[in-house]
């Protein structure tokens, strides 16, 4: 059951063709990995799907409805969330206050059952609950720490928490594993599984292949803006074109 379908996405920036006829489907509840060397158009793909960049051609369908060229906030409101590769949380605020903004949005208020604008207590509780879900230990007061004091691992989780506050159906994760040590990534994996078990569909754009392959149900490979392979990860990395794209790939 496909929850998100992309058909023939094209995008050109000046002289550079960033996306060329990309088409794929994401099944509800699955984890789809998207891999490809730098410059293959992965981030542009997310941007086009989530409304931050207008594709030149092509369609994006969410649950059957056409959301191509919708504005970013509208797309977020119907349940398609995304993380940013370059995170800029509000450093001067405590971690849980960073979630006020998404919690304030109409969708969070509707889906989360939280009547926004009401007592601060309600909102703060919801924020802390979300952070707990995501792995911020309540006991050691982590949610109350200033975002500027948090290490990268926690910041990545905070970014995911931002998405979760919207109670999304699909989350596009732009390189959530980047910048983390091996052990930090190892502790992120159960979180990803947990999100999947909660019914959220995930699309993970990643460079860290070893870890990605542990959680992804299917994998798609891009190169120079084109889709060059799709399927189970073993098939994808066995594909000749993929091997050529990632010159020197080790046998995993």
């Amino acid at each position, binding site marked *: 059951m496909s929850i998100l379908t992309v058909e023939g996405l094209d995008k050109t*920036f*000046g002289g550079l063709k960033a996306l060329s006829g990309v088409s794929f489907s994401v099944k509800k509840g699955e984890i789809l990995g998207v891999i490809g060397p730098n410059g293959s158009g992965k*981030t542009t793909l997310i*941007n086009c799907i989530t409304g*931050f*960049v*207008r594709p030149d051609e092509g369609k994006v369908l969410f649950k059957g409805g056409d959301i191509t060229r919708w504005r970013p906030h509208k797309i977020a409101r119907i349940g398609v969330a995304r993380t*940013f590769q370059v995170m800029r949380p509000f450093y001067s605020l405590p971690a849980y206050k960073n979630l006020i903004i998404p919690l304030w949005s109409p969708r969070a208020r509707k889906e989360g059952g939280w009547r926004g604008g009401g007592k601060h207590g309600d909102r703060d509780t919801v924020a802390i609950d979300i952070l707990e879900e995501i792995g911020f230990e309540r006991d050691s007061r982590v949610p109350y720490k200033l975002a500027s004091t948090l290490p990268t691992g926690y910041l990545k989780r905070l970014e995911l928490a931002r998405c979760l506050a919207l109670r999304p159906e699909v989350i596009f994760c732009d390189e959530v594993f980047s910048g983390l040590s091996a052990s930090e990534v190892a502790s992120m994996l159960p979180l990803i599984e947990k999100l999947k078990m909660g019914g959220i569909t995930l699309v993970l754009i990643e460079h860290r292949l070893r870890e990605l392959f542990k959680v992804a149900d299917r994998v798609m490979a891009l190169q120079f803006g084109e889709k060059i392979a799709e399927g189970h990860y073993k098939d994808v990395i066995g594909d000749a074109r993929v091997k050529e794209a990632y010159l020197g790939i080790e046998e995993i």
Partner: protein
Amino acid sequence: MEILLFGIINSVTLSLTALGFTLVYSISRLPNFAHGALYVTSGYIVWLCVNTLGLNYLLGIVVGIVATAIIGALMYRLIILRIRGMQISEIIATYAIGLAIIEGLRWGGLRGSTFTLPSFLAGSIEIGGIAVDHQRLFVLGSGVVVFAALGLFVKFTKTGLALKAIAQDERAAMMLGIDSDRKALVSFALGSGLSAFAAVLILPLGSIVVETGYNVLIYSIAVSIIGGLGSWGGAIVASFLIGFAQILTEVFLSTQYQMVISLLAIIVTLLLKPSGIFGKQKELDDRV
């Protein structure tokens, strides 16, 4: 016929006045609100050279252009360089400087309409039965030459290409070894010089009034909004649109409507296509 002729002349005149502004913005992404001030200042400097220092007119013009370019460069070096990157501060600073210059000139004596610059070529010729003075034709010709020259400069010289590179992607340009600050300095100086150039060409058609500083700024802004901020093609097209519209209203309605045309054009643009004619949608939401 008359409309066509004066329309073209007016349009080119407009595009010349907007030239400096467009150049600086397209390269350093900085709206130079002191543009109008520099325009008037250059005219004043030339006047001073000619009337107070008794210099030869041509020499005075050269001094005026060079002096204005230097002022622009100094402005960049001393003030703007220090606040580069903080958009709010940049905007306020150029605005404040521009105002300070214009009002400073007004206070310093630039009042009334006694300050004039003589035309280069007196007399007029007849084209198709209409009298056109030589100065206007000279402006027309110079405008075309300047734009052509700039086009070539940007396409073919090293500095020109460097400037274009910075305009497209500052970081990438820096990685290639192009000193962005240095080139921004050059663009500021160049832009100021061009404002001066436009001024010395056009001011002889009227008198040097401080209000011109504001009017030039309004026109430059109008042209930029309608044509798309930083877009050369857009600036030229917009100048022609406004230029012709102005002539048409002058002929069929009355002179009062000229400013209104600019206002209406801006509002219409903002309503229909806010990024302007050649504005790129991509530029609206910058970093992702």
